[in-house]
């Protein structure tokens, strides 16, 4: 069983529907007991980092996530579920989980396109992810595949070594990271058509070994 962490962070049902479609039994839950029994965990998220950390704390899921990470349970973070894994986020100056060293920054207001137009914030829509490492979770995803993004903040890992994917939006930023049994992506695989479903399918079959 796959646990989809429920911490009142936006639309969790879209992740559930995608996993249902792929045929993997899953459950939206915030019960630590149930989550500990899961084979793997999806940590989704839409919304603000501050509010998310607050909810995680109230539910005791912040400690549980650290515990699961140490216990080598495969974890997939999505969007805000990636952002709060870092030390801190500039969004409401939020102290985050600190599982990954680094910070989450706001896109500068001054970003421009190749043609000189000011870029819109949020970064919303389809953009290419260049996967630079041969990770199990991104296996068989064709080069040049695009994924659906919606965000105004981006992760800046302390070490580039954890980045497995990068994306260009007036600047290059890290859009996918992997450390041990943890993979996290800034885009929404559940809303990214075939390449997104492929990534989810890969994750659901992954042993968690780096």
């Amino acid at each position: 069983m796959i646990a989809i962490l429920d911490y009142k962070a936006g639309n969790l049902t879209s992740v559930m529907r995608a996993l249902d479609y792929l045929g993997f039994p899953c459950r939206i839950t915030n019960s630590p007991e149930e989550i500990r029994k899961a084979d793997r965990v999806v940590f989704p998220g839409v919304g603000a980092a501050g509010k998310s950390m607050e909810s995680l704390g109230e539910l005791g899921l912040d400690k549980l996530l650290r515990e699961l990470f140490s216990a080598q349970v495969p974890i997939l973070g999505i969007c805000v579920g990636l952002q709060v894994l870092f030390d801190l986020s500039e969004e409401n100056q939020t102290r985050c989980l600190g599982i990954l060293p680094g910070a989450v920054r706001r896109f500068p207001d001054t970003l421009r396109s190749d043609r000189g137009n000011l870029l819109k914030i949020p970064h919303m829509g389809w953009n290419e992810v260049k996967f630079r490492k041969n990770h199990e979770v991104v296996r068989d995803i064709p080069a040049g595949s695009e994924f659906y993004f919606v965000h105004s903040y981006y992760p800046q890992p302390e070490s580039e070594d954890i980045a497995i994917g990068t994306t260009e939006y007036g600047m290059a930023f890290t859009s996918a990271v992997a450390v041990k049994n943890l993979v996290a992506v800034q885009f929404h695989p559940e809303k990214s058509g075939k390449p997104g479903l492929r990534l989810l399918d890969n994750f659901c079959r992954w042993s968690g070994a780096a």
Partner: protein
Amino acid sequence: MLSKRIIPCLDVRDGRTTKGIKFRDNIDIGDPVEMGRFYYEQGADEIVFYDITASSDRRPIMLDVVRRVAETIFIPFSVGGGIRTLEDMRDVLLAGAEKVSVNSAAVQNPDIIRQGAEAFGNQCIVLGMDVKKVAVSDKIPSGYEMVINGGRTHMGIDALWWAREAERLGAGEICLNSIDADGMQTGYELELTRLISTAVRIPVIASGGAGEPRHLLDVLDQGCADAALIASMVHYGTYTIRQIKDFLSQNGVGVRGSW
């Protein structure tokens, strides 16, 4: 770089689409779920369902459509038409839509944008704007006025002011429809689209007037739109999304090329 989005819009009445009569193959003509799936497979970047029934007693029919669409397509889709309250928004989002579009209700009660953005996140809230070109006046300095009821009721609100105000209130995106161009298939209102899109920092979807691929090129390029809504030109089988995207990409507009 971020791709420009091509977004088919399906008008739904009592759970059936109102256009799409020229579909062949195994499409159940008129079923929004089948048509949504069809466009998903054809390379739509997003889909809009617009409920033109929009009366509250008929809402369960639309919610059922939304639920079934969400089970079969894995790209973002939004639902508009008759969204008036926070409760309406919640119903549609819980049924599986990514975004809700508020239109006339927001003109009459702007606070619904703020409430929706606070409850569900800015990215969920699309402001639908129906706009008509009018004479420049003190009240309407941009020469574009907000209208409702399909253009029959003028609101005395300047469209440019309203777009900025909606952004301030927390709208995550604007779907900008020109009432003058709507249904004409002679091209989008470029001047209007450019005016609004360069005045706000949130994405703007151009709507109304698409008849051929060239129109999309114009609005995404000169019009500075981030996305383009299309209807008849694909519903009647005149063009496929692939043809439109090929044309755009040959002309230097970045679009999602594989799906």
